Every structure is written in structure tokens, then in C-alpha cells.
């Protein structure tokens, strides 16, 4: 996929706010295809809130968000948050299948096995998710990154995706982020660790009220 002529995502004078209280004002960002933007800032600056606003979970009251030239979100972004979307009653494979079904994908058992192998969960397919550790549970939700391409969802909003992951898994994740960006996707992510693959940084501390 070639880079898009217009930026994938533009934030113009956006106020990051949850409820009545503004956290940051006049936030500006241009995110193009191929961008991996590391969203940084001290605790409470509104990193998670900004991602929730962009994901459509919280309203944008002041400022403008433009996605591929449109004022409304024409795509289904991928949103990875602290709440993983994993139901403890379901098996690992059932949870991953659901998370992919949401994007109109119908993965086969082979697809699921490959994605789970990629995150180191091979052999766990039929195991109840309630039996997994925090890191393993997070890997289920991250396994979908293996199968999602920019054609399906060109924008990834990742809130602390590396939390509870070991060093090898973080390295594998960074490789995948780079591949996704090279294929024409854009990523906006928070992380308290250094993100080696990031080619853009947005520091919300600069916009604090």
C-alpha cells in the first residue's frame, strides 16, 4: 500500500476532556500512513482520554478531529486499552475469534492457531481465559494485531500495549508495529517505556491546562 495523499488523522486545536474538566487544550497532530506516534505525558495529562475520544468512546467537544478528510470516523480503528475485551467464560480461541469478528473477519482455526502461536499461546486454544495470567490475557487481545492489516483497520490506538509483557514479546510487538506502519497503517500509542519504533512523539504535557 502506498502512503495516502491526505493525512490519516488530523487533530486540530483539540481539547482533551472527560466530563466538564479539560485536561489539555489546543492539541494538534498530523498522523500520516506509516506514522508510529508515541503519546507521552505525565500521569493525568489525558493520554487515555485522548485515545478514547479518537476511538469514539468519549465525545470531542472542542476542536476538530479529521479522519482521511472526513469529520466523522469512517473506519473501525483498533483500540487496545487497559480493559482487554476478554471474557473469562470463553476459551482463548473463542475470545480471539470474537475480537476479529468485530472487524468483519472470519478467521479459520488455522488463522487462530497461527496468531496464538505468534503471541506464545500455542496449545492454549481451548483453555478458559480465566486460567491465564495477566500477561497471557493481554496476549490474547494483542494476537489480533497479527491478523489485522491496514486494509481492515488503518488506524491503531494502543493504550499501554506493552504492559505485563516480557522483553521478547515487546520486541516481537515492535516488529509487528513497524510492519503495519510500513504497509500503510498509522499508530498512536501510549507507553511508559521507550518505544524504539516510534517516528513521531506527541507530548501532552505541552498542552496541559
Amino acid at each position, binding site marked *: 500500500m502506498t502512503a495516502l495523499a491526505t493525512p490519516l488523522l488530523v487533530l486540530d486545536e483539540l481539547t482533551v476532556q472527560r*466530563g466538564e474538566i479539560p485536561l489539555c487544550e489546543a492539541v494538534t497532530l498530523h498522523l500520516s500512513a506509516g506514522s508510529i506516534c508515541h503519546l507521552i505525558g505525565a500521569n493525568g495529562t489525558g493520554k487515555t482520554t485522548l485515545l478514547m475520544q479518537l*476511538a*469514539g*468512546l*468519549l*465525545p470531542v467537544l472542542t476542536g476538530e478531529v479529521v479522519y482521511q478528510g472526513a469529520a466523522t470516523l469512517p473506519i*473501525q*480503528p*483498533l*483500540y487496545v*486499552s*487497559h*480493559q*482487554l*475485551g*476478554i*471474557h*473469562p*467464560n*470463553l*476459551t482463548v480461541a*473463542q475470545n480471539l*475469534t*470474537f*475480537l*476479529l*469478528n*468485530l*472487524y*468483519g*473477519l*472470519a*478467521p479459520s482455526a488455522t*488463522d487462530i492457531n*497461527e496468531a496464538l*502461536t*505468534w503471541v*506464545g*499461546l*500455542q*496449545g*492454549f486454544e481451548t*483453555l*478458559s481465559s480465566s486460567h491465564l495470567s495477566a500477561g497471557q490475557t493481554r496476549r490474547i487481545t494483542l494476537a489480533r494485531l*497479527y*491478523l489485522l*492489516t491496514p*486494509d*481492515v483497520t488503518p488506524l491503531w490506538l494502543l493504550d499501554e500495549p506493552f504492559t505485563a509483557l*516480557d522483553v*521478547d*514479546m515487546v520486541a516481537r510487538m515492535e*516488529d*509487528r508495529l513497524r*510492519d503495519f506502519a510500513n*504497509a500503510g497503517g498509522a499508530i498512536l500509542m501510549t507507553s511508559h517505556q521507550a518505544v524504539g519504533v516510534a517516528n513521531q512523539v506527541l507530548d501532552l504535557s505541552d498542552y496541559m491546562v
Partner: protein
Amino acid sequence: MSQTDSTIQTMNKSSHTLEVTARGISFTQLWRREWQVKQQGAVQWLYPLVLFLVIITLFPLAVGSEPALLQRLGVSAVWIAALLSLVMGVDGLFKPALDNGTLAQLVVAKASLPLWVLIRLAIHWIFSSGIVAALSLLAVPLFQLSWFEAWILMASIVTGSPMLLMLSAVASSLTLSLKNGAVLVPLIALPMQLPVLIFATGAVDLFATGLNGLPILALLLAGSIVSVLVMPWVIALTLKMAWLN
């Protein structure tokens, strides 16, 4: 089960692509997922059913074995047990989905929330009131009701319980953002549900005395159909509002 990183295969990530088969999640996929959630969480839906069985079993033991008294109280006792069992079971309708992030994933992926609510409630109904309706036939040996009365009792539960469930679900969604909101669900729902209880037991009594209770059952069915058509949209709206708190 343990896994070491050395066993993890290195895979070529760019070689694997999946084709998009639909614009988003389909009805069938949503239904299958919610069915699996319910089926694999038996403890959660068995508890209200056990409560129902305990109430209708203890009631005859407490009242005594006089057939006329049991027959007179039987329909009301079964209906009260059904109502309490239904109200007790709605605690986990939406709270887990909010807490574990399922609701967020549905919203981000632009899935139809009213459809998800409808499917979730339909499956919940099957695993709660649907089974309760079948179990209500136990009123024949326990309360010495005739089979005719028992079938009418079952029909009244089938026609009235969808409306009861929808009212409970609205109450459950309204209290989502409150700490210990589950305590408030019966307080909000029960006053709205009392008319259903009165109409349903009244209909069975009419049939038992040889009168025509069909119009009342038809009224209950109409109320249930309207609530099934309207309430999922109301609940979806309140679920979205829960995010803002």
C-alpha cells in the same frame, strides 16, 4: 500449562492476510459468542434457577398439605418465585461487559449495540425464564394444580416474562455506573413489574374458574412484544451514557 519463549515460533507476519467478509460482526457471530458466554458460565445462570426451585419447594412445606389451600396459593407462589429469580439473575447482564471492555470493543468496532443487547437478553431469557417456564410444571405435584392450570401458568410466564426481563434490564443498565448499583435494581424494577404479576396471575385464575383469560394473556404478549422492540434501543443509549460517568 507453561510455555517458554524458546518454543515460540518466529513467524512471517506480513505473509498472512485475512479477507474482510462483512462490514462488521454479523448477527450469527454475535449470537454464537453470547451463547458461548452463557453456556460456559453455568454457575451464574443456575443460581437463580436454584432459587426458584427452593422457593416453590419450600412453600408447600411451610403452608401445609391441604390441597385446597395449595391450589389457591400455587399460581401466585410460582409467579413470585419466577419474578424473584428473574430479578436476581439480571445483576450480571451488562456490568461484566462494561468492566472487561467488551462494550468498548463493540462501540469502537461500530457494532450495533441495540442488536447486541437484544441478543444478550434473548439468550438470557432462554437460560432463565425459558427454563423457569418449563419448571413451573412442577406446580402439578407440588401445589396439586391440574395440568390445564399448569399449562396456562406456563403460558403466562412465557408471555409475561419478556416484559419483566426488559424492565429489569433497563434498571440494570441505569445503575451500571453506580457503586453497588445492583442493590437498586430490584427497587427500580419491581414497582414496574407488579402490574405484570397481577395480570398474569389474574389470567390463570380466570382460566381456572372457567372464564376466558385469553385477552389478558394477549395483553401481556403485546406488552412483551412492544418492550422487546423498544427497550434494546433504550438500554443501548443508557449503556453509552455509562461511559461518560
